[in-house]
């Protein structure tokens, strides 16, 4: 009966490494429209299956199927498509800028544009977002000026953050975009606190936050789920499962044992798992969670199943740890391509229009960048005023910082 055989330590490893052919045979996907949409007041215990399935609306031919189809006005879809195109054009340009030595660092969200852009559309403009560094799509979709983002990336005289933050760590209260932290996961429970405050004040705004699947290992994520559950906070907690955390495949975060959506089950939270590259599906689940939160029914956990199509950042080289063809082989495709195909399928768009929209996006980014570079880039042109370096540590500058500023002679 008692088995005292030798134990051995298990360390997860991915199916493929550089040199191997991509292999996504392990990935099982529900078909578009297969999973049905519960009422927003469904009891979490009755919809646990949604944490293990995959909510999809768009099929491979671009048809929108099933009860999760949000049936959106084509104008909203075109807006979303343009915002995704703009986000991608922005990423490409800023990535180049870093390569050209105009800034120190940049992070793209290529392949994950729908996660942020569809959410921005489904939320109200005054709902508060607590993003990670990979949801620039929120700002862009909400119409935040590209040039402001570039000022921040270039740490120049016009940088709203006065040259203090690493590039891409934007902050804009006016656009409901919380100051991004370099420390992973900290924003998740903060979003819960903001949502609790909104409920405490009898406000009607809700909060939403995003972390990567790798970040789910931080204690902050547990705190967020726990407090959100206990106080029924009006917040949407999103896990963006792009399957990589720098060089670590999602198995290191636990993906081989359970879905990230299922992390919500133990807190009694509704947990949805969605095709993150399907604009309509992301819009629909965000809308479902937002309605639920506004109805005072509390928080929802959403896992967005997607794929980080490029490197972690400009400091990273993914060819060192995964097959270079992976991105192309990823079965859920590209969110921009898929929405385009859908719009064309419903006769609301065309390849020409797509070409044109793409060209417009590139133009828009180019213009903004011209303006931004004219002010300055990191180490060139006009920097922020040096004496601001000592400001905002406290509301009022204490004696020791005044002395230090004097010592620096500004």
């Amino acid at each position, binding site marked *: 009966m008692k088995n005292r055989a030798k134990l051995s330590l298990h360390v997860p490893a991915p199916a493929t490494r550089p040199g191997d052919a991509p292999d996504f045979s392990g990935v099982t996907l529900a078909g578009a429209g297969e999973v049905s949409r519960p009422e927003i007041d469904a009891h979490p215990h009755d919809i646990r299956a949604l944490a293990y399935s995959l909510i999809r609306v768009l099929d491979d031919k671009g048809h929108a199927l099933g009860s999760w189809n949000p049936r959106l006005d084509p104008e909203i879809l075109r807006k979303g498509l343009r915002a995704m195109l703009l986000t991608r054009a922005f990423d490409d340009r800023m990535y180049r800028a870093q390569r050209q030595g105009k800034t120190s660092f940049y992070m793209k969200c290529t392949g994950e544009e729908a996660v942020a852009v569809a959410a921005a559309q489904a939320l109200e403009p005054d709902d*508060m977002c*607590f993003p990670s560094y990979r949801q620039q799509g929120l700002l862009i979709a909400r119409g935040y000026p590209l040039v402001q983002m570039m000022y921040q990336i270039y740490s120049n005289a016009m940088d*709203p*953050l*006065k040259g*203090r*933050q690493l590039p891409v*760590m934007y*902050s*804009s*209260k006016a656009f409901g975009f*919380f*100051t991004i*932290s*370099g*420390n992973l996961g*900290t924003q*998740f*429970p*903060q*979003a*819960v*606190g*903001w*949502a*609790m*405050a*909104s409920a*405490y*004040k009898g406000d009607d705004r809700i*909060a939403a936050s995003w972390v990567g699947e790798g970040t789910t290992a931080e*204690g*902050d994520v*547990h*705190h*967020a789920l*726990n*407090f959100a559950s*206990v106080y029924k906070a009006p917040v949407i907690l999103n896990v963006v499962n792009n399957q990589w955390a720098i060089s670590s495949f999602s198995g290191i975060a636990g993906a081989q044992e359970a879905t990230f959506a299922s992390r919500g089950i133990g807190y009694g939270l509704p947990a949805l798992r969605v095709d993150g590259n399907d604009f309509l599906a992301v819009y629909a689940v965000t809308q479902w969670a937002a309605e639920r939160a506004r109805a005072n029914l509390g928080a929802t956990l959403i896992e967005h199943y997607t794929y980080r199509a490029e490197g972690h950042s400009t400091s990273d080289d993914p060819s060192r740890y995964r097959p270079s063809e992976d991105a192309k082989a990823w079965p859920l495709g590209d969110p921009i391509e898929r929405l385009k195909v859908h719009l064309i399928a419903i006769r609301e768009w065309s390849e020409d229009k797509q070409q044109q929209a793409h060209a417009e996006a590139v133009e828009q980014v180019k213009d903004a960048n011209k303006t931004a570079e004219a002010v300055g880039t990191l180490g060139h042109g006009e920097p922020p005023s040096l004496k601001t370096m000592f400001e*905002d*540590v*406290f*509301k009022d500058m*204490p*004696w*020791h910082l005044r002395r230090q500023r004097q010592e620096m002679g500004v």
Partner: protein
Amino acid sequence: MPAMNMIQALNSALDVMLSKDPNVLTFGEDVGYFGGVFRVTEGLQKKHGLTRCFDTPIGEGGIVAVAIGMGAYGLRPVVEIQFADYIYPAYDQLVSEAARMRYRSAGDFTAPMTLRTPYGGGIYGGQTHSQSPEALFTHVAGLKTVVPSTPYDAKGLLISAIEDDDPVIFLEPKRIYNGPFDGYHDRPVQSWAKHPASDVPAGHYTVPIGKAAIVRAGADLTVLAYGTMVHVALASVTDSGIDAEVIDLRTLMPVDIETIVASVQKTGRCVIVHEATRTSGYGAELSALVQENCFHHLEAPIERVAGWDTPYPHAFEWQYFPGPARVIAAMQRAMEG
């Protein structure tokens, strides 16, 4: 005015602010219905309601994170960490978030929160109910650190902390919650009632953050102390007969440098007293500041009297606690030195 002990004064500060400002709320482990393990929030839930004073899950990191989010919304949360020894799980949220928010967002977002927590030994709490972690906060740019030593200051400083737009770490010397403590654990306990600073106005008033108090004027030596050690310092002065000036710092960050420098330039001698472990304790910063600002006035080495560089041992609490004997010895060295 009613005589209040420190617990009553702190409770009164919270009561006043909950009544005055709907954006103030308080929460933490056992602070709601029960009123906190040290009773500081007693009666507040009953009076102000379930959503303004409530219990939280036992996750200090979550408690502080939620307070930061509420602060970003526009509230002024006051959280209690049951013992300062349990603040470490929240350290990342305090250091990387609360302290940095205003700076990294260029004032776009702030963290106007107050974190209250009982610190220090003297209650046989052993190594995990006796710590004094102030230096772990004074090193962090963006945090204010406050330590009261009387009921009057406790209420006035807590109201200032709650009204302050920056995050404030408010350390409560638990050994003097119920009475001033001179460090002689073998003498009868005193109550606050007989102490002038137990005359606490019932209403709203403030004691400014950043201002020290000269609690005893003296000519020969300056003693820098805060919290419980202020009372130990005063007893040491009485018993040593040395005409020392005793300064209660009250705020550690930003510290009241003028008051410190003026005193040491006058006396030429300085003894720094705290309960926290010595190495890299706040006394090191004070020693460095005094040395840098008063070098040419110093007639003797600056002395540090502090907790030993060990955990706080249960059985040897009174051998660990830097009581009058050690303070007096240091004062005498400083007078000779």
